[in-house]
């Protein structure tokens, strides 16, 4: 455990040193600034627009952090062959994988938390300026939705670790992780669309395709599970069972991926 934390600490510091952090920070500030300007263009639902923009900014910033910083942290050792040096130390391969992942998680958490604080200021400020247009807004829902953005990004980080272990170069990892992200974000819509059009017999779907859909919905992550944006935007009641289930779904998915990654990593040879 100590070794995992030590490695996590090094990974975290390495992440902070990355220049991409500044770019992603600027991008988020831009979106949040844009939010303040754009909010006034709307007639009634200013609160909803503000919440949408803030949560989407968090989500996109998280995606960029994992793809451009997190991914580098995983594949740098393998790319530069410094992995051989690391593995000569008294650290097991599973400790290496978990240490790296925890480090990335710490880094993403700190970065997203900073952005979250700023977006709270934006939301708070706008709710004072546009008083009366934030009637449905509930802080607890906003916090839950933001937390689930972090859970989603954590799952994506686990996917990046998994592909980082399999792939031979960081570019391939990037492509695979990005594809997994697209699949994760669109899976829900596609599956439900196919199911609804199959039940209304608009489209005839063969048994084979149905099986493929069922299998895919088990293998690929469904990021819509972590989507509480509508609840946050309108202050709709959150069902505790859904919140608990989503959290469990995320945690179990991450752990399975990390354990699979260690299996593969233990068999991998570096030369």
């Amino acid at each position: 455990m100590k070794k995992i934390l030590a490695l996590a600490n090094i990974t975290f510091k390495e992440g902070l040193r990355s220049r991409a952090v500044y770019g992603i920070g600027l991008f988020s500030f831009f979106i949040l600034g844009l939010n303040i300007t754009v909010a006034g263009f709307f007639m009634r639902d200013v609160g909803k627009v503000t919440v949408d923009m803030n949560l989407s900014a968090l989500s996109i910033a998280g995606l960029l952090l994992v793809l451009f910083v997190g991914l580098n942290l995983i594949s740098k050792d393998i790319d530069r062959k410094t992995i051989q040096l690391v593995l000569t130390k008294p650290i097991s391969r599973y400790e290496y994988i978990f240490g790296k992942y925890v480090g990335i998680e710490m880094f993403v958490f700190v970065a997203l938390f900073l952005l979250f604080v700023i977006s709270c200021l934006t939301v708070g400020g706008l709710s004072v300026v546009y008083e009366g247009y934030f009637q449905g807004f509930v802080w607890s829902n906003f916090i839950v939705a933001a937390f689930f953005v972090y859970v989603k990004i954590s799952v994506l980080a686990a996917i990046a670790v998994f592909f980082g272990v399999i792939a031979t170069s960081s570019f391939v990892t990037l492509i695979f992780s990005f594809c997994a992200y697209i699949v994760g974000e669109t899976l829900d819509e596609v599956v439900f669309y196919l199911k609804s059009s199959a039940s209304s017999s608009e489209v005839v779907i063969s048994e084979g395709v149905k099986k493929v859909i069922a299998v895919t919905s088990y293998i690929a992550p469904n990021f819509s599970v972590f989507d509480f944006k509508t609840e946050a935007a309108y202050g709709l009641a959150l069902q505790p069972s859904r919140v608990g289930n989503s959290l469990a779904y995320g945690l179990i998915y991450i752990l399975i991926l990390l354990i699979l990654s260690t299996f593969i990593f233990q068999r991998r040879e570096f030369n």
Partner: protein
Amino acid sequence: MSRSAALGLLALLLIGYVFVQRNAWEDRALTRRSSLPGYVLPSGVSRVLAMGNKGILADFLFLKTMTFFGERFQTGQIPSEADWSYLMHSLDTVTDLDPYFLDPYVFCEGVLVWWAGKIDEANRLLEKGIAKRTWEWRLPFYAGFNSFYFQNDNAQGSAYVIAAAKIPGSPDFLKTLAARLAYYGKKTKTAVLFLQQMLMETNNPQLRKTLGKRLAALEAASSIEEARERYLKDFGHYPEHLNDLVSSDYLEKLPLDPYGGRWEVLTNGRVFSTSKFSEQPSTKNPSGVQPVPQP
């Protein structure tokens, strides 16, 4: 190349850039003004493309639609049938992406109903919102008014308004409004009451301007109608000409129609204007006349 030559070239290029840049933006302004409305991706596709950001995509699409109609409005162009169809598709997609979003419904009531006169389509959109925003009294209120005033369906209209009045937080006047609407029926006063409420509810400057103008016109018509009623009470018959109301001191003078038309009395006794309360057609788009729905 020497340093001074390079600097000179750079200065020339900068001047050229400023010139070209200005032209490019002017071209864009021209293109946008004459542009056909965009194609709206069906919500089945756009909700997949949104990649988990359906809310913000709905905001963006709605903003785009508002800008499009804002430009039509500012340049004095009267929207064509294609523009209205774009509006309907776009609002449909926006409310599919985010059926809770209130602004598209307000815009729909302000523009699709009062400007385009597409009542059935507007009520279909409003139904979507009524199903989702169960805490919102405005949507059944709008739908109820549309049924009452434009579709002549008093039963449906009262059902909507009564439903609106039952929603917690709805204003007190709604409780008596159903009765008042039924009493006034298709009188212009109904529309005046409704428009005053709409104006209180929106802060979009363009929408306020259109609705304000229409409210002024309807208030003028309503004042003439009321004067005619008083005349009827005193003399037992309506005046032959509207000018008789002025000569017999029931009105100080005939109010002006902000749309520039002449007042006339319809066969159903309603006062209306030859302008039909619509903007005069521009020469660019003569087919796009959208008169107010005949009361």
